[in-house]
């Protein structure tokens, strides 16, 4: 992992007083090659020529709408941007175009069925959703998950963090204009998805982590396959690093852009890589470890500039940290049960159903009626690739939750668009949105 030299920040705004500073600014805006430069806005040209230009409050601005069907808004996000020429004065995200009513559906489904629903929220890293839901149910019921299940969960979550960040590398590259990243990112992500298919049977929306453990045990020979994929991913990441990290065009597009400070992040409830990019090393895996994160070695990646480039770098290196954790999981995976042997929660094994009437009835009842959960309420949170994902669950003692609420990190992270995007250029707005990495399924739920 290369350490990057400190990056000189590009000032976002600068008063234009005289011709000298103007020339200075022009030179500053030039790219390293000097091939392109940003033209001064119309307003600047007119004012420099001694012409008249209406005051801003005279309605000089334009409101432009971007989305909801737009290739670079990551799904169905819609942005209302107030522009002064090429400069963005305000950005307001308009969401809800993917509102799926999942919290209502979650109240209709039993605790057994619930993971099917939540896994479709953050579809880029579904294991985090299933995990947080299952942990909330387990907390209300008061069961302990066997050790092997915990480690399997942790390994799958880290694999899905890899998949999610690889997806980010692909789409972020495409949004900023490095279209070949799209192919490279998907190349590695596909390998990780094949692991999911191999272990869980599905490429996405796996519904693998369930209350009480995981759905099935790991298949034979999983160690070698997962280690092979780890090697592939590490190789891929070093390629991206080579391709982008020191690439002058990439740096020109991202360094010093979309800056956000720690204070703003905390005030706006922003978590995850965005918070860490501001120099605040907060990772729930370290701070409030669940699963077995306190038994593996990994580092929290953080940088201090809070710009688009830093968010890209953090996600890139987090892939490597995940690889580290997965390798340790492969090494240390304990033997034992992959789900609790609690008749109340766990369905009987498939083979027993063929032999025993009780097992059949039990299986049927569990999947039609579900199990009862003692009344109470709880909030559980874990670190998803996008930040803190939480589940607030209220039970009334029946087999369906009264309220199942998922705190989607992207939902809160979207609030960062305004402080980040203000005073940027329109063309940079795409880079900023992409660097937030919102998954609309989780924003709108």
């Amino acid at each position, binding site marked *: 992992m290369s350490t990057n030299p400190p990056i000189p920040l590009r000032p976002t705004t600068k008063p234009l007083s005289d011709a000298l500073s103007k020339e200075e600014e022009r030179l500053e805006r030039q790219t390293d090659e000097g091939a392109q430069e940003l033209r001064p806005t119309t307003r600047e040209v007119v004012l420099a020529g001694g012409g008249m230009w209406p005051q801003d409050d005279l309605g000089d601005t334009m409101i432009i709408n971007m989305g909801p069907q737009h290739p670079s808004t990551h*799904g169905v996000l819609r942005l209302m941007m107030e522009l002064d020429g090429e400069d963005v004065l305000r950005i307001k995200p308009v969401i809800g175009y*993917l509102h799926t009513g999942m919290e209502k559906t979650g109240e209709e489904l039993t605790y057994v069925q619930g993971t099917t629903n939540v896994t*479709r929220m953050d579809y880029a890293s579904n294991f985090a959703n299933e995990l947080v839901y299952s942990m909330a149910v387990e907390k209300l019921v008061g069961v302990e998950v066997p050790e092997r299940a915990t480690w399997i969960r942790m390994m799958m979550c880290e694999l899905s963090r890899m998949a999610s960040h690889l997806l980010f590398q692909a789409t972020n590259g495409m949004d900023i204009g490095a279209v070949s990243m799209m192919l490279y990112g998907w190349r590695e992500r596909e390998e990780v998805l094949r692991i999911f298919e191999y272990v869980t049977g599905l490429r996405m929306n796996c519904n693998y982590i369930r209350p009480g453990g995981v759905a099935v045990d790991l298949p034979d020979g999983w160690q070698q396959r997962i280690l092979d994929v780890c090697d592939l991913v590490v190789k891929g990441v070093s390629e991206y690093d080579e391709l982008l990290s020191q690439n002058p065009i990439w740096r020109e597009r991202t360094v010093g852009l979309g800056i956000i400070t720690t204070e703003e992040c905390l005030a706006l409830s922003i978590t995850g890589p965005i918070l860490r990019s501001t120099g605040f090393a907060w990772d729930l895996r370290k701070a409030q470890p669940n699963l077995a994160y306190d038994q593996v070695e990994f580092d929290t990646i953080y940088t201090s500039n809070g710009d688009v480039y830093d968010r890209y770098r953090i996600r890139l290196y987090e892939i490597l940290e995940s690889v580290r954790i997965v390798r340790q999981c492969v090494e240390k995976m304990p033997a034992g049960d992959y789900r609790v042997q609690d008749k109340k929660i766990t369905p009987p094994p498939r083979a027993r159903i063929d032999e025993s009437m009780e097992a059949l009835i039990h299986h049927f009842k569990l999947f039609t009626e579900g199990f009862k959960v003692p009344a109470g309420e709880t909030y559980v949170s874990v670190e998803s690739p996008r930040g803190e994902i939480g589940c607030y669950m209220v039970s009334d003692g029946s087999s369906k939750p009264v309220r199942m609420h998922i705190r989607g990190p992207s939902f809160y992270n979207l609030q960062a668009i305004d402080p980040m995007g203000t005073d940027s250029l329109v063309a940079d707005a795409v880079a900023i949105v992409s660097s937030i990495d919102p998954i609309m399924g989780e924003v709108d739920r």
Partner: protein
Amino acid sequence: MGLDQVPHNFVTARLEDVVRWGRRNSVFPATFGLACCALEMMATGAAHYDMARFGMEVFRASPRQADLMIVAGRVSQKMAPVLRQVYDQMVEPKWVISMGVCASSGGMFNNYAIVQGVDQIVPVDVYVPGCPPGPETLMHGILTLHEQIRTGELLRRREASPTGGAGIEVGREPVGLTTS
């Protein structure tokens, strides 16, 4: 000039067949990714599965340049008018693939927020089942569509009606409100 003047290297065919052949081999999909299925649609376009084999790798961002809309994901009540507008902006001839159970019938989200089947808004040519349909399934759907284009009517036009499939007008009160 008679045919004997033409040197060599030519093929004769019926105009209809040539048009169909051309249409079939250069279907430009619009980028209309909505939810999870969009990721599988992107995976289909990426290197492993490579939609370029069917002449379909050019995802057009503007609906006016596209002639296939792959509705990849769940369509919410808020998105439905937008979807219809995008469909109306596409030029004839145009086709629609409904990808995934959500787009086809609402899937597991049988609730107030989701349109229970995109065929209530736009006419659908091919339904691709699955949640999400894997890239292979989507490619099978695409090949099915190609077969439809190859054998279908050349000058097919959809009836000009304000409604899509099942007689639900876009812009009217959403379905969720009218049920008891």
